[in-house]
């Protein structure tokens, strides 16, 4: 009887340890224990993410991954994702966090957890010089493209629907780069993208004949880092990380590095307001 009881006690203790282990070990612990941060970035979205000439990940998002890993004291492994890959990669556990300019819509927040915003974009049109696109409503007469499943696609299509333009002049692309390639080749007349990306593209000699056009009306794209929705402690850590990036001046430093310009005060203000 004694023996049976001690077995029972041990079993209970082990079970308890087991349960408490699964209950407390969260993503933050997992990452530190594993010694590797699996960080997803969209590397087709310069200057936030792109490949440099050695085919290595570069850009502000990639640098944020490296900073985060450094703060955690772990190594970083950067995964190249398409827009569509972002959530599957989180849910499938391939990535621990995705720093990929994800717009914080309430619809998406039903599925993933968002941190505080870390960047603000405006949606803008890029087209060939002299194409005659002056205001956003001019787009009706042109062949327009946008990357599939992005917030700017949604915004454009919603606007087009409101104005009764129909979809016949619209082409979707699997990625941002495919869109730019199509614009470059002349497949489309105008591409909806973000002001940051457009500015970067215009600085290259390939896009010297192009110009930035009107903005998508009344829309600020506020983006956050995403993680699994239930990893609250992890998301809290990420929030603090973002606050520190701004407080320690690292954000301003990286902005300068990737945009060749000082960070606009409105952006910092907007990031603070949207917390």
């Amino acid at each position: 009887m004694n023996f049976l009881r001690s077995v029972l006690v041990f079993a209970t203790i082990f079970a308890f340890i087991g349960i408490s282990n699964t209950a407390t070990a969260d993503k933050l612990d997992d990452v530190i224990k594993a010694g590797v941060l699996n960080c997803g970035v969209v590397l087709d979205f310069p200057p936030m993410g792109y490949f440099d000439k050695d085919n290595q990940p570069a850009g502000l998002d990639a640098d944020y991954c490296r900073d985060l890993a450094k703060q955690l004291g772990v190594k970083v492994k950067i995964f190249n994702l398409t827009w569509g890959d972002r959530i599957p990669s989180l849910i499938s556990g391939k990535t621990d966090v995705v720093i990929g300019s994800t717009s914080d819509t309430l619809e998406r927040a039903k599925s993933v957890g968002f941190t505080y915003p870390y960047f603000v974009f405006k949606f803008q049109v890029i087209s060939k010089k002299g194409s005659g696109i002056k205001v956003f409503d001019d787009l009706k007469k042109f062949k327009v493209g946008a990357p599939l499943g992005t917030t700017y696609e949604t915004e454009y299509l919603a606007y087009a629907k409101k104005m009764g333009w129909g979809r016949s002049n619209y082409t979707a692309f699997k990625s941002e780069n495919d869109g730019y390639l199509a614009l470059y080749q002349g497949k489309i007349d105008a591409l909806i993208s973000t002001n940051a990306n457009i500015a970067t593209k215009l600085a290259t000699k390939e896009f010297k004949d192009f110009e930035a056009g009107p903005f998508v009306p009344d829309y600020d794209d506020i983006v956050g880092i995403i993680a699994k929705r239930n990893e609250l402690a992890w998301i809290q850590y990420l929030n603090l990380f973002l606050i520190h990036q701004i407080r320690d001046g690292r954000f301003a430093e990286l902005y300068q590095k990737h945009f060749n310009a000082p960070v606009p005060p409105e952006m910092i203000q907007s990031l603070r307001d949207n917390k």
Partner: protein
Amino acid sequence: MGSLFTPLSWNDTGFILQGVLNTVYISVLAIVVGSVLGLIMGFIRSISNNYTNFVLGSVLDILRIVPLIIQLILFSTFVGVIGHPLLPFASGSIILSLYTMAFMTEVFRAGFDNVSGSMRIAARSLGMNYRQSIRYVVLPIGMRSVFPSWMGVALSVIKDSALVSVIGYMELLRTSEQLITRTQQPLEILLGVGLFYFLISYPLSEFGRYVERKMAI
């Protein structure tokens, strides 16, 4: 920031080669594993009754009828949801192998069915036991006739392995896409990629036809 667009250079050779090797690697793996599993399943199907065959056939049907691209996305998401995330290579090879298996099963089943009942009976009447008759008669004769269709499936697997790029495996096509993004030279790179697939696939398909012709006589 560094420059966004840089032309293709000799530094990229290693990078491209890695993509090529990854394509070869996952294709060979899927063909080998898929063939072994297909051989087993084909054998089971050829000896099973109608009921078992119906059930097996329905399961294999799903693998053949749902587009590979959707199977890949579903599987790699699913394994993560149940808490066992896999690397793109692992999810990719599992699905590609199962997909190969589904087609190989039918190939081998046809091979087994080709060996007529009287030939099996003849083998048994020579004093062979069941195992021996399978090992020395059914397998060798059945397998010889399936080689051309086996080659057909294997070739399509090499080509379909390009789809594993959608879940992030850096095979040849995804490698080339990354280079296109960086260089904005789609035509040159795509032609190179096409040529590579052709150089692997064409000699193999010619070989398949050669064997088919030889066996036809």
